[in-house]
């Protein structure tokens, strides 16, 4: 547990700071060797809070509106000013997702799997938000940007927006399947095995979203019980649990495994060679 810091003697640790948190005795917090990972980690709750506020109370993009909405409803939604505002906030902040995903990749590096898993994870984490976040924002923002667009065009943008929003879940499937398989194949037990299986459900149910391209009403439509709500019931607790365990994994990471302290570790060896 507390294998990362060797200089600590029991009783003289600063209160509230765990031996494994990466802080050396007597050093200020900003010299924490895991500060990079903690910053990435804490960007996630900020990002998701922003996401939730913008999606629900600000624009009512979520929960998804019906694919069966009347033209008047679609036009009223697409031209609402809050929607443009919401899109701008998300377009500006979507980069935070990349920062948050860095924390997965840092921990995946410690797993005994091929680097191909991390590269594929990264490719998935890039393509997913482009299609699933940026595309819909560009579509939804246009109605308020130029209010005299033809309603027919707005209806198409509405379909385009929601289909790329919810129908692209398959893009994330690659990303999470790489994480899930890495957890299951990993012999270092960086994350618990059962979480690997939970991740398998997570990415398989995401594939179900493919039905939104066929059904326009009912449980398999983009606002349906099985294509959307059921996935959310699985996804939201999973996301919280996975971040909790990622946090524990950062805490338990021994300092000699941190790539950013490697040059320091390498020094004695270099000196030895020089001598």
């Amino acid at each position, binding site marked *: 547990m507390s294998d990362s810091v060797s200089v600590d003697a029991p009783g003289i640790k600063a209160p509230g700071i765990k031996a494994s948190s990466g802080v050396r005795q007597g050093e200020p917090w900003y010299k924490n060797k895991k500060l990079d990972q903690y910053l990435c980690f804490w960007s996630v709750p900020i990002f998701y809070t922003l996401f939730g506020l913008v999606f629900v109370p600000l624009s009512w993009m979520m929960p998804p509106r019906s694919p069966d909405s009347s033209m008047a409803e679609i036009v009223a939604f697409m031209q609402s000013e809050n929607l443009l505002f919401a899109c701008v906030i998300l377009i500006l902040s979507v980069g935070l997702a990349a920062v948050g995903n860095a924390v997965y990749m840092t921990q995946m590096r410690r797993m005994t799997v091929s680097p191909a898993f991390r590269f594929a994870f990264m490719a998935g984490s890039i393509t997913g938000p482009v299609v699933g976040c940026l595309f819909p924002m560009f579509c939804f923002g246009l109605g308020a940007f130029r209010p005299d667009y033809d309603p027919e065009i707005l209806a198409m943008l509405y379909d385009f927006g929601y289909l790329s929003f919810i129908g692209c879940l398959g893009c994330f499937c690659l990303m999470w399947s790489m994480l899930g398989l890495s957890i299951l194949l990993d012999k270092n037990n960086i994350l618990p*095995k*059962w979480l690997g*299986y939970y991740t*398998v459900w997570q990415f398989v149910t995401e594939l179900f979203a493919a*039905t939104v391209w*066929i*059904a326009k009403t*009912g449980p398999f439509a983009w606002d349906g019980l*099985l294509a959307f709500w059921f996935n959310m019931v*699985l996804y939201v607790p999973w996301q919280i649990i996975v971040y909790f365990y990622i946090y524990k994994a950062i805490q338990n990471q021994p300092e000699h495994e941190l790539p950013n302290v490697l040059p320091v570790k390498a020094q004695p060896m270099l000196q030895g060679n020089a001598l």
Partner: protein
Amino acid sequence: MSNTLESVVHKVDVREQPQVVGAFPGQPSMWFFIIGDLLIFGAYFIAYMAYRSQEPDVFLQSQQAMNQGVGAINTIVLLTSSLFVALGTEAVRAQKIRDSLRLFGLAMVFGALFPVLKIFEWLPKIEAGHTPGENLYLMFYYVMTGLHLFHVLLGLVILGFVMRNIKTAANPDVRFVETGAIYWHMVDLLWLVLFALFYLMR
């Protein structure tokens, strides 16, 4: 150095394996997966029943066009495969390596028949225009049997790893073999419910 360490670790593993009758078979994480998977399928089954009760005529009519013969053959194929897996696991426990390989091989042959039969079931349906978009029954049918098919394919991969372990390891990992076996039985159990709900129910 690391080789001797590995062999020591392996010996410890073998000693801890539940060779005793009545011990909990397989790895705990697989039980987590199986129970959760059954809950997820259970939720889908409940949703299916709820939507079925809303338009019973459409569901019944489409259901009657199902090829019950292929469904029944698939049921027998999976049950037979599961029997061989159970016998193979017993053989591994009794250290009969050659027998267990033969039994798991037979299990895989029967297991591999399932996707082949599925193709022969799906293709004529799709060619006749009975696609998922036709009605809610067919959407449920393709999604649920597709999800189950995914489990079968994953199960075949797992059985492959089980056979590799039996063949190559000096001492087959009984707990790992059991883990594969309980997964395969779950696939079987799910199919029985699917068969009842999508082919037989009136």
